[in-house]
């Protein structure tokens, strides 16, 4: 009895509770759901639910895998094109965010120390206000009778409204706008820690500031560049709300296809298969991100 008590006590000591509680929580809500998606992607839709995977017709359970959704994914050109165009838009978003965000983060890290907290808060503040409302705001700016066109017409810059809404342009504006803070924050965190003595040493040795920037600042901020790019790229691949509100019907994004398969066609195996392929596509960038994160957090001893 005493032994059992001891065992129970050991089992319920602080360490096990502190580790066990989050473990159960994430297993149940993060890992198991993804496995279920994988399972359902290999099933068939039967009227209102998906087919059971275990087949008892032989008297013993056999696992029945149905690759119909995947073979449809592979044969229908639409899916292939949609994956490609999602990757294209996500890459473009990442590149534009980097081009705008890197100089910004650099200048912010070089601005007077007492101003930096305020500048940082001004970057975070839009992040706190509803994402949905900010995307809607771009709609009011970009439509044909929208604010931008009205202002340009009243200033006689243009005579006819420019068609900006429901184009790849409006999609890119919305994506860059929403994801720019995710690029700036890790870059700023990285660049503000940069040891300026390296640059002084380079200048003492006769390197021009421009060359020093490319040879010292950029390589040293590699971790920030990678973290920011992944934080923009990965969610951008699966983005649904922005293409739905700002993109045209011909801007293909995989998040929208998944949504339609699920909500309009009610085809759960198909939606799951679309999701599984999407996960495979973002697996590599996620692995890179995790690797750099853990290297950042646990510096080599």
């Amino acid at each position, binding site marked *: 009895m005493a032994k059992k008590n001891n065992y129970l006590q050991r089992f319920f000591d602080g*360490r096990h509770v*502190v*580790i066990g*509680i*989050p*473990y159960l*929580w*994430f*297993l149940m*809500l*993060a*890992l*198991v*759901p993804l496995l*279920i*998606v994988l399972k*359902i992607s290999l099933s068939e839709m039967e009227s209102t639910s998906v087919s059971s995977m275990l087949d008892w017709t032989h008297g013993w359970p056999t696992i029945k895998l149905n690759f119909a959704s995947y073979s449809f994914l592979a044969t229908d050109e639409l899916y292939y094109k949609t994956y490609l165009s999602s990757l294209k838009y996500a890459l473009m978003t990442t590149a534009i965010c980097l081009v*705008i965000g890197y*100089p*910004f983060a650099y*200048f*912010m890290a070089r601005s007077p120390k007492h101003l930096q907290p305020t500048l940082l808060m001004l970057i*975070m503040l*839009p992040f*706190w*206000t*509803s*994402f*949905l*409302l*900010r995307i*809607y*705001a*771009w*709609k*009011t*700016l970009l*439509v044909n*009778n929208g*604010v931008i066109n*009205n202002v340009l017409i009243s200033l006689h810059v243009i005579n006819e409204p420019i068609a900006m809404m429901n184009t790849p342009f409006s999609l890119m504006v919305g994506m860059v*706008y929403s994801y*720019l803070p995710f690029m700036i924050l890790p870059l700023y965190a990285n660049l503000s820690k940069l040891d300026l003595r390296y640059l002084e040493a380079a200048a003492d040795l006769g390197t021009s500031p421009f060359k020093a920037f490319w040879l010292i600042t950029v390589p040293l901020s590699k971790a920030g560049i990678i973290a920011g790019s992944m*934080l923009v790229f*990965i*969610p951008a691949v*699966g983005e*649904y*709300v922005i293409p739905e*509100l700002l993109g045209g019907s011909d801007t293909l994004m995989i*998040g929208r296809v*998944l949504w339609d398969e*699920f909500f309009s066609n009610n085809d759960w195996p198909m939606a799951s298969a679309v*999701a599984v392929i*999407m*996960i495979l596509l973002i697996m590599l960038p*996620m692995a890179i991100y*995790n690797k750099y994160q*853990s290297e950042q*957090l646990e510096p080599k001893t």
Partner: protein
Amino acid sequence: MNNSVIKWFSQSWMVAVYIFLYMPIITLVIFSFNDSQLVTVWSHASFRWYTALMQDDDLISAVGLSLKIALFSALISVFFGTFTAFALNRYKRFKGRTLLSSMASTPLVMPDVIVGLSLLLMLVSLQQWLGYPERGLFTILLGHALLGTAYATVVVTSRLREMDGKLDEAAMDLGCKPLQVFRLVTLPLLVPALVSAFLLTFTLSFDDVVLSSFLSGPGYSTLPMVIFSRARLGLNPTINAVATVTITVVTIAVIASSFYTSHQERKRKREVAQAYSDTNQ
């Protein structure tokens, strides 16, 4: 290139980015006071859309539901996020640590549609099995709590890293039991992080549309779901009014909380300085 050109260039670059970030929000607010039915054509100033807002029953009940979900999901997120952060930071080596840390970061980077779909399919399987849970408030709450836990973990982790654990050791040397150390030393030091984690997860929940759409059942529409369905159809002046109200509340809350945290920080530094001068006397 001389210095003044670089300075001018860097300042205009920063100003341009801030204009890009704030222009949509500012126009949204300005046009909420527009009397015209056309959202983007200015007629004259009025509170017409704010009065319309107060009679909009769909919107008001959606606000109520969203606030309820945001409050509870933020509390749950902070609770589990604190546990996760402790497990990952206080115990450096245990079996499956990598799995836990990657599971905890999955909801941060995974596209919303996948998180929503996977959670829903899990809940549907559970329902076929046990007859529970019904889709509605509880299922939305679970989804938001999952997302929030991941964010709360990040916030609490960054605070735990700043605390070097020396105070915990000192308390233990003075005879505190582990739970006492947590209650008397670690928890009070963590409070600012817990407050910001609460605010962040509250906002995330209040803002989410994709997870809610997947997880909600008939009769449960959160505020973003109502806004999204109206915005899909076109421009709608009531959205501008809703936006202005939320932006005002959020701005006040963010400024107040940043004052609170900087105040706490200064108070802590003062106390540390006081303690040092006391011991040196």
